[in-house]
């Protein structure tokens, strides 16, 4: 447990440095903030690997476990995006999400793990969550884009305007996230189907979660199409990626609790 507190402490201090950076944009704050979240991510990875070794099974079969994996993926995807775009301001809204999911994963009571064999399911879960992580980042940059766009159009340039990243940079991060998230989600669905075939003998069962995942997959495919072929850009794309992510959120939470099915999470 001490180990877990260590990880949390690293994440929190990283968040703190990101917030300090928000108020005083000095490069050293963001650099150390990035270093701390990287350390947190490494310990997080060690913690999960240790759990896998200890339990002797892949540990993504309960909600709590899957959230721990999700939050780890978010950390690494955040670091990758920062590597290319270095917009530390994103961290101050992104890291809280990581921390929340991490704490939620630690505290939620897990039902007894299902016996699932093979490596298709772990792959299914990692791919799907990696895709979700990119979509979450696309969602957040979409929200910030809308806020910033409004500021520029209405010509009210306050403190928020000066802190937020440039419009085209957010638009580009959004595009990058969706172009990376989409193939990952595709792989997630395929590996899921293969895994299902091995366990239940059928690729596709039309359970609500599968249906919604398919809908989301189609929506993101449409979004990519409008962007790359029809040349949509900026506000429309931001609104679309926000809306699709909200639907995704509904599948993730809503379907789990409200609709019966094979997917418990």
């Amino acid at each position, binding site marked *: 447990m001490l180990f877990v507190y260590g990880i949390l402490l690293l994440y929190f201090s990283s968040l703190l440095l990101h917030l300090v950076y928000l108020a005083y944009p000095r490069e050293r704050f963001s650099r150390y903030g990035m270093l701390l979240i990287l350390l947190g991510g490494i310990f997080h990875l060690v913690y999960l690997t240790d759990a896998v070794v200890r339990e002797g099974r892949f540990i993504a079969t309960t909600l709590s476990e899957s959230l721990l994996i999700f939050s780890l993926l978010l950390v690494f995807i955040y670091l990758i995006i920062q590597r290319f775009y270095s917009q530390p301001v994103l961290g101050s809204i992104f890291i809280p999400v990581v921390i929340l999911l991490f704490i939620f994963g630690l505290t939620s009571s897990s039902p007894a793990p299902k016996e699932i064999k093979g490596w298709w399911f772990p792959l299914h879960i990692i791919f799907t969550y990696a895709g979700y992580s990119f979509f979450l980042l696309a969602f957040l940059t979409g929200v910030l884009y809308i806020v*910033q766009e409004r500021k*520029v*159009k209405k*010509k009210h*340039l306050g403190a928020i*305007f000066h802190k*937020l*990243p*440039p*419009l*085209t*940079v957010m638009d580009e991060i959004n595009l990058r996230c969706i172009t990376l998230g989409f193939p990952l989600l595709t792989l997630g669905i395929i590996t899921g189907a293969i895994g299902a075939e091995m366990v239940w003998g059928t690729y596709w069962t039309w359970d609500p979660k599968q249906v919604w995942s398919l809908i989301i997959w189609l929506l993101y495919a449409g979004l990519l199409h409008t962007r790359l072929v029809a*040349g*949509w*850009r*900026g*506000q*429309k794309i931001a609104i679309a990626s926000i809306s699709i992510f909200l639907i995704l959120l509904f599948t993730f939470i809503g379907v789990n609790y409200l609709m019966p099915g094979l997917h418990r999470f």
Partner: protein
Amino acid sequence: MLIILCPGFTGFKLDAKDYILVLGLSHKTAPIELREKLALPGESIVKLLGMLTGNNSIKEAMIISTCNRVELYSIANGIGEAIAHGKESIAKIHNLSTIDFELYLYSLSGLDAVRHIFRVTSSLDSMVVGEPQILGQIKEAFRTAIVARAVGPIINRLMHRAFHTAKRVRTETGIGRSAVSIGYAAVELAKKIFGDLKGKKVMAMGTGEMGELVLRHLISNNVGEIFITNRTYSRAETLAKSINAKVVKFEDYPSILHTADIVICSTGSPHYIIRAETMGEMMRKRNNLPMFFIDISVPRNIDPALNDLENIYLYDIDDLEEVTWGNIKEREKDAAKAEDIVSEEVNTFALGLEELKIVPFVVDLKSRIAELAERELKEAMSKMKNLDDTQKGILKEMADAIVNKLLHNPIASLKKMQRNGEIYIYLDAIKDIFGLKKGREDEENKNRNESE
């Protein structure tokens, strides 16, 4: 159309018939087409200065030619003749008829002229109040006139006062800061739209001072290719040469406008030259990449509806000012303060001119009396023998003291009268009493003969 002619006497006399005279047109009175037609390149300015001062009616002259104004500042012998001569010279150098432009001309004389010159130099009469380029342009015009030997003591004094006024306005009010920060604000906005400005293409339409200022701000942020277009091709060429840009013919700009990320517009056209209806096509061509329009023109040259279109951001000069100033009140306060400074300096200048007139008189008076004392002292000393140096010194001191004490009160009174504006009542009388008038006139005649 505006005509401010002052045939009546609104000014004051410098000498018998010397007037400070401003003759010109600006963005406030004349359309851009005419301003561009009347604009003068450096060589023509020298030539025109020669033509102007070659006539007896104009003693001193300098010419300002920017894209917002063409003005002649002169010391005239008589207002009517000087205006006529000025108009004819301008018409001649451009091969125009005076009818082509005289409706747009204004002429100011005396203190009105002084005030106008101070306001122009302080950038209070600029299209974008406070833009810093005008001061440099006027300094350059002044230098040109000096080199052309068209400037005499009065314009010299006048311009130095004008530069002093401009400096005061700049340092004591926020007016100048605002214009500079408009360039800065434009860059900040561009950065918030595009991120890094490196490689972003810029199109500058028109060659106005403020447009150039914004352009230079962008250049210092490493923008990519720059295109300049202007109705008068040569003006675009001159600007392009100084900043390493490409010139585009005014007819051709619509075909490349879609390649520009940032468009600065200061053409001074009386109507919109970029309309919202044409932008759909433009945005399709550039795959909806965002565009940032900066409209510095007065009146506006870009349809405000552009800002409602997707991925297009339009800021006009008021928007930029509001962004930099926050609230209008402060700017108005600063503008009022600047006008106060100008009024103060106009008064100081006027007073200085009056003083100019009394100084030679006082010098005359002093030297006349001192001469007298010296002469009498010598005579007295030659009559007294066996004086040692100490005694001679005492006598000399006494003579000097008498001169100074005798003159102290009259000179102080003269200065006081001058400040009260009563000097004219007494000046002639005093000259008569001291027998100064005749001597000076003789001297003047002598000088005149010599110079002729």
